[in-house]
């Protein structure tokens, strides 16, 4: 079993799109002694090459994104509260009444809630838009707030992580779980040469991956992601996307990519040979860095391995440790096969 101590560190670190420095530094520190060539590009992507025991026939890239969804301070009200806008797609219910951390020193705040006692009956079931919400850090005026926070500061869901009964509940599993899988692969011995990118700005338009794919110019790529698990009450099997605990998720198509058929077939075959639990994503929904990578330069043959994650893009997601294990195994095995395909 993988030791998840580093995953906890990744999830507890704050880093919304465009502000991934702390996450990048954490990963750099983790992989600096594993004999890889490491560089940081102009966008803040962490690009890594590690030699294997043998030379790869094909350049294979594994990619995961470092950024998490959150908010950005768009204004400061005269009563000292912060106005926010979402960075990445966040359901307004996931934001309302939650704890947040503001700016680089992680000032504690809460998304203020107008007390239910004071609402008209038609308001009681309606959640206001995120840009109408106010973050309360305990201050009373704009001047006072400016001592602790400023326009453009990052606002993150308050860090949380717990691991019990084979299940992890934590902030930012999308996509620190992917980053974790990549660092674990990097720290092991590789059969063939392999490229890695820990990219920025996935949540605001797959932007980091575009630059990383351009620079590395791989022939094959595997995007390691978290995806929406909808095995929750109220969603029946006919509209389920994937289920927690049933293995890593392989995709044939999502809203950003039609995946390489041969790569997918290879992954499915590998899973069968090696007895790795996998499931197919059962909806054309969502999208990830594959969208930018597969269309890079003259095209990159791309597959996606995702972790089924409930309550993605909210304060706390839920994944299964066994699925992380499956994803690690299928990514590593598939990468080695693609290297000599």
């Amino acid at each position, binding site marked *: 079993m993988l030791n998840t101590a580093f995953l906890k560190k990744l999830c507890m670190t704050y880093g919304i799109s465009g502000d991934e420095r702390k996450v990048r530094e954490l990963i750099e520190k983790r992989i600096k002694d594993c004999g890889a060539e490491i560089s940081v590009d102009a966008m803040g992507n962490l690009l890594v090459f590690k030699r294997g025991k043998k030379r790869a026939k094909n350049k294979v890239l594994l990619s995961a994104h470092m950024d998490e969804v959150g908010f950005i301070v768009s204004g400061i*009200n005269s*009563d000292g*509260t912060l106005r926010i806008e979402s960075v990445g*797609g966040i*359901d*307004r*219910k*996931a934001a*309302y*009444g*939650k*704890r947040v951390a503001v700016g680089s020193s992680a000032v*504690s705040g*809460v*998304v*203020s*809630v*107008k*007390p*239910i*006692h*004071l609402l008209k009956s038609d308001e*009681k*079931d*309606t*959640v*206001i*838009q995120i840009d109408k919400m*106010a973050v*309360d*850090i*305990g*201050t009373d005026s704009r001047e*006072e707030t400016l001592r*602790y926070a400023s326009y453009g500061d990052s606002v993150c869901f308050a860090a949380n992580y717990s691991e*019990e*009964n*084979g*299940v992890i*509940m934590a902030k930012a599993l999308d996509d620190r779980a992917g980053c974790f899988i990549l660092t674990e692969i990097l720290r092991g011995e590789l059969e063939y040469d392999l490229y890695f990118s820990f990219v920025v700005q996935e949540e605001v338009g797959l932007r980091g991956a575009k630059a990383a794919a351009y620079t590395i110019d791989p022939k094959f790529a595997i995007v390691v992601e978290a995806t*929406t*698990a*909808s095995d*929750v*009450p*109220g*969603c029946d099997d006919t*509209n389920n*996307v994937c289920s*927690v605990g049933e293995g890593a998720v392989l995709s044939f198509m999502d809203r950003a990519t039609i995946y390489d058929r041969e790569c997918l077939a290879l992954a499915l075959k590998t899973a069968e040979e090696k007895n790795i639990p996998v499931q197919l994503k059962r*909806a054309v929904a*969502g999208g990830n860095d594959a969208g930018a990578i597969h269309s890079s330069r003259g095209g990159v043959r791309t597959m996606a391995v995702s972790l089924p994650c409930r*309550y*993605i*893009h*909210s*304060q*706390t997601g*839920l994944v*299964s440790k066994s699925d992380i294990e499956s994803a690690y195994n299928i990514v590593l095995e598939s990468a080695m096969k693609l290297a000599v395909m």
Partner: protein
Amino acid sequence: MITYMKNLLFNLCSANSVSGEEHSACEIAKKTLEPFASIEYDASGSLIAEFGKKDAKYSIMLDAHIDQIGLIVTHIDDNGFVKAAPCGGIDRRVLQGDRFYILGSKEIKCICCSTPPHLSAGNEEKAVGADNLWFDTGISGDKLKKSVSLGDRIVFAAEPQELKNNRMTSKAVDNRAGVAAVLYCADLLKNAELNCKVIVSLSVREEINMLGAKTAAFVRYPNEAIVVDVSFAKQSGVPAEKSGELDGGPMIGISPVLDKEIANKLIDAANVKKLKLQREVMGGATGTNSDVISATRGGIRTGLVSIPMRSMHTGVEVVSLNDVAAVGELLAEYITERSITLC
């Protein structure tokens, strides 16, 4: 003093005591009162403490409800999901995606389920319905049923956290802030030679039907009572005329159901102690225990002091420790003065 108040209130807020199961919060409060007060639990489960002059003819009751809002388990499915109903007026707009504990034979962490966005298209603004509250434990149904039973309570997992300016956020600040103020008052008076008896009622089930206050007032039937609760503070979206202000000091209740003389004496006491104060005027019932206490038996003269709060009935309730401490001081001054003039 602020450190004292912070420790006290953080401790009280850490207890998970939803209406009907208030014992753990009572036990924490008991530690403050035990050294100088006689203590018992009454038939409803409220903690009743008495101190001051034992055989005094005049008694003053300080009431603060000790229960908190939460939910109650109504169904456990085979996949580890738990269905629940509100227990108290919980705000359904903030539940989804937040972390909770199920208070079974052990505490079980869980998340309030939300519908994935691709399946909730067009309904993004709609709060989850009271009949559709599900919690995800990530544990198999069989295993879960060994530690969770129908009727177990569910609470926000939101631990106390300090904010700027001696303010804090937590679940259950409604009404552990009131409890903390009453305990602080009792602590200030523990060595005083009072001519009256002080009855502290940390009453249960306010959020359901004010049961604890009703029964305690009936049994003890004090000469007067002061209820300590939280009320609305100014915040984004709340009309100024309906709210007090954080750090504006104790909010003295003025309403047809409250005793006018007590309100005036409370204002006098605030002035003596040079405490900031705010007047909270209501046209009728106050929505607090004072509504039932004042109409107990042949009637009890009742006052109301409230602590200004933001984001009430959520997991991110906010109060100022300064206000909580000021309410404690105000009550101590009021009782000291009352003890001299009345008894």
